[in-house]
């Protein structure tokens, strides 16, 4: 294969469209063999790669407002691929792929020290506190393209990397040099009933995600488009998930401002 241009897969999530319905969460669970237990109400023990947060504006009735914010792995690039989690993993069980921009997790390599979880400010990394168990018969709906994780390892959203692999395989079989935008879409993007998620290559100006976010690659990938923001922009994590909201209070909740406001 020739040297192909590095891709940078990312997402734009339109919070004006997102209804908080949870389809993305379940699509992800079904696609990625996420286990479930009888009681999943302790969200700190629950494994869900995609989590939908409910943001509130903190105002009393009737000025109260809420907004849903789906949070997959942000696939931070940091500076030169030094995402918060990748550089801390002692066993090289997670990796930043500079060809795709995807932060991967190698379950068979992870020995469960959880340092990466401590490093991630977005809480995208989840530990398998329990043995995954499927009630008799339910293991039949497991997806063979994604390995089942064992107890004691960390897992997280992979941008459905198996779909990228399959898209590449398909393109190769069909004699195409590269994959098309629609060949590789994550399960959550595909499922979203509100079409709130747009996924694609941020480096490719023809991709919708690039046109929506207009990332400023010389400036740490900051969005140039109006009303777009990234979570915790100030930390320098350089994430590849962009959010869009026309509501100012929502955009404000994307980062910490208290120190800045105090100065003002």
């Amino acid at each position: 294969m020739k040297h192909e241009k590095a891709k940078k897969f990312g997402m734009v999530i339109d919070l004006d469209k997102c209804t908080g319905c949870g389809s993305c969460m379940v699509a992800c669970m079904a696609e990625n063999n996420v286990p479930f237990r009888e009681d999943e109400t302790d969200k700190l023990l629950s494994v869900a790669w995609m989590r939908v947060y409910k943001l509130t504006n903190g105002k009393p009735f009737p000025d109260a407002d809420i907004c849903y914010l789906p949070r997959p792995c942000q696939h931070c690039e940091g500076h030169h691929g030094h995402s918060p989690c990748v550089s801390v993993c002692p066993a090289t069980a997670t990796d930043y792929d500079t060809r795709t921009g995807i932060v991967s997790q190698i379950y068979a390599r992870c020995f469960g020290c959880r340092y990466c979880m401590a490093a991630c400010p977005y809480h995208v990394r989840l530990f398998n506190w329990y043995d995954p168990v499927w009630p008799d018969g339910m293991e039949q709906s497991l997806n063979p393209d994604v390995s089942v994780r064992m107890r004691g390892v960390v897992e997280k959203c992979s941008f459905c990397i198996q779909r990228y692999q399959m898209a590449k395989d398909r393109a190769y079989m069909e004699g195409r040099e590269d994959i098309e935008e629609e060949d590789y879409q994550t399960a959550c993007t595909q499922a979203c009933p509100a079409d709130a998620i747009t996924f694609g290559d941020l480096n490719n100006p023809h991709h919708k995600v690039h046109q929506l976010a207009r990332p400023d690659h010389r400036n740490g990938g900051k969005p140039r488009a109006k009303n777009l923001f990234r979570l915790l922009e100030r930390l320098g994590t350089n994430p590849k998930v962009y959010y869009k909201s026309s509501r100012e209070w929502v955009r404000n909740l994307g980062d910490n401002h208290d120190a800045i406001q105090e100065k003002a």
Partner: protein
Amino acid sequence: MKIDRRSFLSFTIGGAAGTALSPLPWKLTDDMAIWTQMWPWTPVPEKGEVTYVKSACTLCPGGCGISVRKVDDRIVKIEGLKGHPVNDGSLCILGLAGAQLLYGPRRVKAPMKKINGKFREVSWEQALDEISKTLADLRSKGEPHTVACIADSDRGTVPELLNRFLRVYGSRNFIRTPSIQDSYELTLNLMQGVRAMAGFDVNNADYVLSFGSGILDGWGSPVHMFKAHSLWREHGGKLIQIEPRLSSTAAKSDSWIPINPGTEGTLALGIAHVMIKESLYDNDFIDNYSTGFHEWKRHIIDGYNPEIVGKVTGVAPSTIVGLASSFARARKPLAVCGRGKGLTPGSLKEFMAVHTLNAMVGNIGKEGGIWAVPEPEYIEWPELEMDQTASIGTQQHRADGAGSSLYPQARYLLNRLPETMNASSTYKLIQVLFVAGANPVYSMPGSADIKEAFEKIPLVVSFSSYMDETAQMADLILPNHTFLERYEDVPAAAGYNRPVINLARPVVEPRFNTMHTGDVIIRLARALGGTIAKALPWESYEACLEEMMGDRWDTLVEEGYWTNTDFAAPQWSEAFETASGKFEFVNKEISSLARYSPVKPEGDEAAYPLILIPFDTMRLWNGYIGDPQFVIKSVPDTVLKKNDVLVEVNPATAKSIGLRDGAYAVLSTPKGKARVKVHFYEGVMPGLVALPRGLGHSAYENNLAGKGINFNELVGPFDDAATGHDAAWGIRAKLAKA
């Protein structure tokens, strides 16, 4: 050889050193790492050939097309069907978890008979024999009208087969589970003279005035509504949400208008008042295509000025004026109603009030307006040939009182059934009850009364694929294949404005000893013989379906769905089938109905100072299907914590009772009591308690069973004076420290 201490030491140390230097420890360490990667109890999904099967989701009335991903003969994922007019590739949370219903532990694996309170497996022959004997018996006794059937729909071949079977057998007691469809059907019938489903051209509407409809909480066809909402966001369409609680729909709306619960109809008439006063209506429609406007107008002018309406509804008069003006001035305004997911029919007059708004802006049958979608016409069966028993039986009153002199308008009144049955302790109103695709024991308000009524029925037959609450109360369970194992036509998508037929098909072979309900009915008919066998002459359900579909069959098999792309709503001149041929604001029938007044919640204000309202979300399903594992997993911990449900209370209200955030409390209503936790929520109107629907199951696997409480246990039905349908939207309640 003598082993002394020294040689023993040397041997041990030397041995240890030798072992350490050999490849053994390295090999063992390596094996260990490999072993931890495939613990025998961690499943390894098998690879295989990947195929996609087009089918239909039947889990809600939404009518979505699905594309099922298979690996060999396993279903691994359900996705939305690309190009489908309703959902175009997307799918809702429940549909996505559909495979869990196929493979999960809640399945009924074989026909079951309850003997001494416990279910025993029986053969299909034995089960069908037993039923046909009982049915033959009742006929010979001249009591065929004591057989009834509850189904979730009255459209499509399976419900029609059930209905046909019942009729030719001699009973009129086919009962559809209640929903806003009841009220919309009646509204269209009374005002437009048509028998049709209400469809909403939401994709083209640009100003949607929603009277409490959970457009983004599962109302209508959820995915279709979501997509429409996204279109509004892109094209500047507006959504105005009128409801007492900041639901997901309200949060996404452009303007949330909190309103005193139950007074939505009053607000609609208040808006109508302003529109009349300011002549903000479509003169062409009013003058040329409607009658009774002036008579109706007087009544509105007198009773609904913004001040009065403001007092009743709690909405500022200026807001009412503003709403009227922006609604009427919008290019394509649309008003919708039916609270939450639309599971309660509600007050007919409220629906009619909202519908008059649509009429005044002249959006009936127009782009972006409300359409009358005709019933599917593909099921054309020959006129029934009834024998004497059947003729006499079908002349009897319906068991639920629908169509009686008291409630002449209603077609089905499942909510009235328990009261009627429980009132008559000796007379056998229903002796055999079939339940197909419904779970009334859970989903109907007044659970206790429903259970009492069910206990009185000598033979309850459930067709459920799952061991749900109703199946648990049945005497016989004849499990249907799940929607992934059977053929079935799904005509129409709720709230969609064009005719569409989806075809569910067996994506996999039936996993268990189940039988298609259509086949069961045909076999029962055959067993009963005579006119009954004649009326259902098909070899099998599949044969019947294929015959009904006619030349659509090939399209259905090929595409997974069929739609009439040329369908257009008729011109106003031809649209109305009333006596006047016009839209009728007032006519004889409408005038005979009780006047509109807001439905009051049951209970005494002094004893129950608060009002309990239910709310619906996409993550909790409360119809026939209870949440599968993935869906209940997605429920946030502000709704469910361990087994406790959290009720939403405004902090001001909670503090006045002395309740802290997260504290236990006792929630009591005139109908029942429950232990709940309190969740402070600024998005709920003071004085209200909001409880999610869809929890409190006693059936299903432990992921769902025993979690939270069922709203229906705390509320009873409240008959709409006009129709007899359930119009309860809440109940008076008290919240006290636990």
